[in-house]
């Protein structure tokens, strides 16, 4: 029932958007036609009186702009881990292919396919990461995305691995979702919230079927999962910003009951505007609380946290450190504590080399040390990442 109601709401929203945009388009095109006629008449009158401006050939611009943006990103790694069968390894971790374009005056579409390393077999396996249709012309500061996407739970989850400064995602992402985070098939509505202090505040509400992970599973019999996020962004000075986010999620878990999660994220960024390619500093932390119902009367209440800092000390050079503490959603007795150090060298925007050392303390297994070298390399036109 909830499912049908949800679908109805989405369809109504989409129809309103299309109708609104259509009306806007019709009105403006009538005005535009009249204006165009006036402009043509004027320019014809002026042509004889004034010398014409030398015009550059316009054809190549329009030809190129109708093609979708195509990009491919490779992620090659070499690693040493102190425990396990394969201590030293060399492997292609992932290939990502992205196709993005404006669909029509009302929407854009993004598709991302990947060939990622299967953690069990070690073989590359194909997968669909993103397939979304996103509105560009909804009224009332709304934006609607339909398809498969990474829901806006916290700060990290919306990122793809190549866009994250560290080689691996924080332990809380891995333990509570999956090594690449949480994916959802459904609808996402976001709204720029008007507020008296005129700062950026965005409310996102997402509903759909979760790709099964450690906390939530793809619901059967119409069971849906819900994710919400409130993002607050402040310009502290010209060179520094602060972002504070609150997240919540609810959905079915493996036991047939439900899991509820809450999160808080805080990000401070500093980058001098004048020398914006030479120096920067980021401090980012997230806290996640989880309440997993395991039976009629039993529940597991756990939490995870990470805090990272990254400093850019020269045009191409970065250093970073991260602290992780994370329990597991269905086992209050297990926890990981990890410390990570990162060196990153970025010759251009299209090639990033990173060396990461990580020490992990586990209370249920042997502690481990690992060193990973990663090189990210991209070709084609890849859409710029969100701030």
């Amino acid at each position, binding site marked *: 029932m909830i499912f049908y109601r949800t679908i109805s709401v989405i369809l109504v929203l989409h129809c309103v958007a299309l109708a609104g945009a259509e009306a806007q388009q019709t009105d403006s095109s009538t005005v535009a036609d009249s204006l165009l006629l006036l402009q043509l008449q004027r320019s014809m009158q002026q042509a004889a009186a004034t010398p014409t401006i030398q015009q*550059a050939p*316009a054809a190549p*611009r329009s030809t190129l702009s109708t093609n979708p943006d195509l990009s491919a990103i490779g992620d090659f790694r070499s690693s040493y881990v102190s425990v396990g069968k394969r201590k030293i390894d060399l492997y292609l971790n992932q290939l990502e292919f992205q196709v993005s374009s404006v669909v029509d*005056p009302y929407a854009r579409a993004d598709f991302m396919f990947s060939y990622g390393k299967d953690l069990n077999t070690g073989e590359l396996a194909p997968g669909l990461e993103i397939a979304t249709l996103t509105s560009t012309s909804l009224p009332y500061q709304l934006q609607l995305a339909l398809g498969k996407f990474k829901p806006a739970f916290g700060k990290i989850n919306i990122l793809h691995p190549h866009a994250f400064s560290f080689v691996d995602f924080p332990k809380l992402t891995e333990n509570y979702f999956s090594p690449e985070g949480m994916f959802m098939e459904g609808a996402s509505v976001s709204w720029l919230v008007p507020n008296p202090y005129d700062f*950026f505040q965005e409310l996102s509400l997402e509903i759909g079927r979760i790709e099964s992970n450690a906390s939530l599973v793809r619901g059967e019999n119409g069971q849906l999962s819900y994710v919400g996020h409130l993002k607050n962004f402040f*310009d502290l000075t010209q060179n520094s910003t602060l972002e504070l986010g609150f997240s919540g999620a609810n959905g079915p878990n493996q036991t047939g009951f439900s899991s509820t999660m809450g999160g808080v994220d805080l990000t401070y960024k500093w980058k001098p*505007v*004048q020398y914006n390619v030479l120096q920067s500093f980021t401090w980012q932390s997230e806290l996640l609380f989880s309440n997993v119902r395991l039976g009629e009367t039993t529940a597991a209440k756990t939490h995870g946290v990470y805090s990272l800092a990254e400093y850019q000390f020269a045009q191409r050079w970065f250093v970073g450190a991260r602290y992780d503490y994370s329990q597991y959603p269905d086992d209050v007795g297990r926890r990981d504590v990890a410390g990570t150090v990162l060196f990153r060298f970025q010759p251009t925007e299209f090639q990033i080399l990173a060396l990461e050392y990580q020490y992990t303390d586990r209370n249920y297994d042997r502690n481990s040390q690992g060193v990973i070298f990663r090189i990210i390399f991209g070709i084609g036109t890849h859409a*710029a990442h969100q701030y």
Partner: protein
Amino acid sequence: MMNKRATLFLFLPVVCLLLSSSALAQLKVVTTLTDLQSITSLIGGDKVEVFAIATGYQNPHFVDPKPSYILKLSRADVFVTVGLDLEIGWVPPLLNSARNSRIQKGGDGYVDASVNIPLLQVPTSASRGQGDIHVFGNPHYWLDPQNGKIIAKNIFDALVRVDPDRRSFYEANLKKFNETIDAKTREWTEKLRPYAGTKVIAYHNEWPYFEQRFGLQIVDFLEPKPGIPPTPSQLLKVINEMKRDHIKIIIISPYFTTESADMVARNAGGKVVTIATSVGANEKIKTYYDLFEYNTSQLLEALR
């Protein structure tokens, strides 16, 4: 109760009228660069409220797409961009989240200021092996004041599209801008005419339009390829070039550090001149006219 309702119904249209008239009072314009902001202000006068995303002393290739800019864009009537992929790293994510169809590509309020610009350095083939090249041509075209007239015309067209009632006002300002820029261009070029053909070195390839207008000859760059930081071998090559051809000037923008340029100048017996790429690069440059006034004066002083 009825009286209150009646008052409300009577009052409501007045409030709506006031709100709509105040909304019409000023068009909200967002530009990517301060140069476009300045030109828009000169054409739109007090009928426009213009916000520039990048500052005048910031590298326009690398601007962070902060969410606060999304807020500005969501309310904009007009958006003006340099185009030619100069802002490809930060404008698309901002526009995609702006939720404002007026300023999307193809919308009445979208202005690609590069339309009709006679472009320089349009590559016949493009590869990233050549560094940060721009496939549509060099995008720093606003550094020729005569291109300012084409930019102004593009902005004028958009202002008229979204606010046709004020056409004559914008037209008068456009005419005044064109006359002023023509007169001043003559002054600025006259000022540097005695030094036409002088060879100079630049840090980054962002001056071809300026070079062409003012008769300078940029023979090499400190960057070995666009966007690639100076390498020792490139700096050595430039030092030898400067010594051999008696080149005395290295021009650099405010957002590059002068360490490598200073080193080259010391070794080659030249000097480093910081000139502005945009309005607001320093406190003396408040308008598009000031940009050329400042740059030509700085160069003249260095060349004397």
